[in-house]
């Protein structure tokens, strides 16, 4: 079962007493704010969690896997996530057993 925005809003309602509308709005705004920063070319560093970084990729040759036809993959900017030490340890310890 995947965690979604609905459960995050529910947690803000249960644990912080935000009303349902405020909780939903806050969760939306939280992710929107990170996206806006990345869109404006800024990296986002959330200590204890991880960093969202930007990488510029050059154009490279690609292939349509169905037809085998060669088509260039255009130059693009992509987001990568580097998990922080704390998150890596938390996941490693809990998930390997």
């Amino acid at each position: 079962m995947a965690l979604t925005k609905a459960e995050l809003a529910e947690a803000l309602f249960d644990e912080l007493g935000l009303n349902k509308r405020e909780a939903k709005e806050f969760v939306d705004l939280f992710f929107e704010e990170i996206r806006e920063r990345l869109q404006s070319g800024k990296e986002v560093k959330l200590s204890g969690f991880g960093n969202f970084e930007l990488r510029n990729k050059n154009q490279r040759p690609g292939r349509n896997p169905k037809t085998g036809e060669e088509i260039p993959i255009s130059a693009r900017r992509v987001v990568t996530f580097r998990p922080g030490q704390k998150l890596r340890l938390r996941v490693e310890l809990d998930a390997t057993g």
Partner: protein
Amino acid sequence: MTKSELIERLAARQTHLMHKDVELAVKLILDRVSMALAKQDRVEIRGFGSFALHHRPSRIGRNPKTGEAVTIPAKHVPHFKPGKEMRERVNDSASD
């Protein structure tokens, strides 16, 4: 942008919330996402992206100082896959 800058920006946009609550809310969201991953659950945020675990099998490594072979145990590492809207918005701004 750091976590404290994120908190400031959200507080400026959510003036009806107490600053302390904005801070707690940001920490709660990050904690829930981490908790889900620790339980091997996926996290799916439409338009933003999804977080999941990738498995790294056990391998033989070497202590770079002594040259001694050591077994590095299997582990899981968090992985983020950007969603469609995220990919498009980040890429569009690069070509402006």
